[in-house]
């Protein structure tokens, strides 16, 4: 029985975290059917085969172009039935997580979100979840035959394992009641690397002294093909938009490299970055608590160190 993977997309492109979900399902070794909803580019769908899907379903009804939580949940439930799949895997996100909740409730599935590793099936079926905002983990058994698994970034590595496959059109009958929530408009940052998906994040704090000084961080981010983030005070003061706030009550990131500039490292900020593989802290205060959580540190003035760092990276590229 294949594992069904919900593939999320934005502007026709499959999200990187969804490729990780396909890779995760592929590693489970039962075969993978991926399903994408709404407007998605043909090549993007075909490429899902490369990452491990044997079959790709595409529900292209234009009513599904917007991420409507209820409607998406209903389509996924139908696809689970049609594919005779017991397990749904998806990437946790602002859409994926609430969709997972409704799917699990509809089919009485065991549900786990923020899963960080492949399941352990040596005795039963257990997964490891990140809890306490990255400060701990829990191993939970998913007892029901039907399971919904939401994975955290980096739970599996997206890599080429197969060949492209032709997407199969998937016809769905949509129910009006599932469209009770209407999306009237949206605001999206365009042309930038999205913070939750970025491999490298450059973040600034109050030490940057004002929004007018963000240019040097943006330059560093551009050089590294990184996303920009910020601390809570910075977004509270409206120096930067809220969706860039990294921390306990903001975005939790899990990049390969997190560079924190002028951020003291309050425990609430650390909660948002503690899943990073490598942390670099640049702060002029040698006693900043962030240094204790860092892999590499530089005590120095951001306005001096950051441009030098950008230049040094450009030099090796």
């Amino acid at each position: 029985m294949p594992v069904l993977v919900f593939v999320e997309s934005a502007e026709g492109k499959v999200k990187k975290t969804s490729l990780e979900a396909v890779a995760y399902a592929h590693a489970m070794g039962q075969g993978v059917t991926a399903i994408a909803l709404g407007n998605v580019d043909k090549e993007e769908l075909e490429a899902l085969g490369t990452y491990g899907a044997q079959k790709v379903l595409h529900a292209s009804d234009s009513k599904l172009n917007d991420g409507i939580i209820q409607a998406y949940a209903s389509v996924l439930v139908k696809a689970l039935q049609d594919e005779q799949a017991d397990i749904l895997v998806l990437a946790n996100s602002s859409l994926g997580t609430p969709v997972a909740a409704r799917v699990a409730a509809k089919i009485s599935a065991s549900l786990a979100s923020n899963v960080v590793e492949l399941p352990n099936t040596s005795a039963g079926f257990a997964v490891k979840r990140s809890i306490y905002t990255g400060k701990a983990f829990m191993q939970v058994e998913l007892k029901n035959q039907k399971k919904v698994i939401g994975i955290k970034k980096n739970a599996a590595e997206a890599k080429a394992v197969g060949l492209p496959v032709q997407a199969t059109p998937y016809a769905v009958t949509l129910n009006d009641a599932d469209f009770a929530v209407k999306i009237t408009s949206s605001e999206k940052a365009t042309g930038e690397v999205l913070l939750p998906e970025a491999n490298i994040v450059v973040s600034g704090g109050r030490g940057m002294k004002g929004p007018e000084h963000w240019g040097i961080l943006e330059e560093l981010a551009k050089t590294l093909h990184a996303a920009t983030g910020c601390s809570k005070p910075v977004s509270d003061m409206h120096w930067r938009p809220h969706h860039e706030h990294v921390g306990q009550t903001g975005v939790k990131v899990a990049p390969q490299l997190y560079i924190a500039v002028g951020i003291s490292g309050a425990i609430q900020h650390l909660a948002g970055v503690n899943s990073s593989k490598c942390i670099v802290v640049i702060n002029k205060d040698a006693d900043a608590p962030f240094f204790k959580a860092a892999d590499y540190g530089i005590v120095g003035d951001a306005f001096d160190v950051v441009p030098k760092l950008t230049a040094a990276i450009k030099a090796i590229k």
Partner: protein
Amino acid sequence: MKILVCITHVPDTTSKINFTDNNTRFNTAGVQFIIGPYDDYSLARAIEIKEATPGATVTVLNVGPADTEPTIRKALSVGADDAVRINAEPTDSFFVAKQIAEHAKSIGYDLILMGRESIDYNSGVVHGIVGELLGWPSVSPVMKLDIEGTKAKLAREIEGGKEFLEVNLPFVAGCQEPIAEWKIPNMRGIMSARTKPLKVVEPVSVDSGVKLQQFELPPPKGAVKMIAADNVAELVTLLKNEAKVL
């Protein structure tokens, strides 16, 4: 308008996390408990809506044993009218959602708010399950919420931006900042919270599909390597060759 706000009773965000009983129980020793920060935002917005809407009421609900009552009283002290405690250890998201949905059916609310996720188990799914169990729409994470008669206008945070939505009451929302500013209780609020009704209700039984096996702490972090500010090139070398992240 009847608003239900579901709150969690969770360790303060600065808490050190430890486990006992062979890593099967959270160690509460020395831990300060608070209203979940996301729940606290939803509570603050509920109070604002109540203050702007004649006749509106706010009920607070927590699924937890008796020791969560000081946290519930805190929610009453910032302006909720009454409270319900479902007398049970909250074992998993489905269990909690089922308790909320059963209570909601018995009362008939117009709006159910809660945080986008609890900060202990971070599941972020209870609002969706409650919505499904009640057959209501659910929206999360909501960063702006305005009620206009029987309709609501919301903003939902998405990766790299936000979406603006409209939905009719009733619905369930998982909330986050900046939906409202946290409310600080004043002395009058604290005094009046002592006598506000707090009803204790026994849980409905739930066949849970998830079972805790064990908690685990991450491996300790190695020591930080300091690099001189005038030797930035060395940092780049280390990131490339040692950490292998460039």
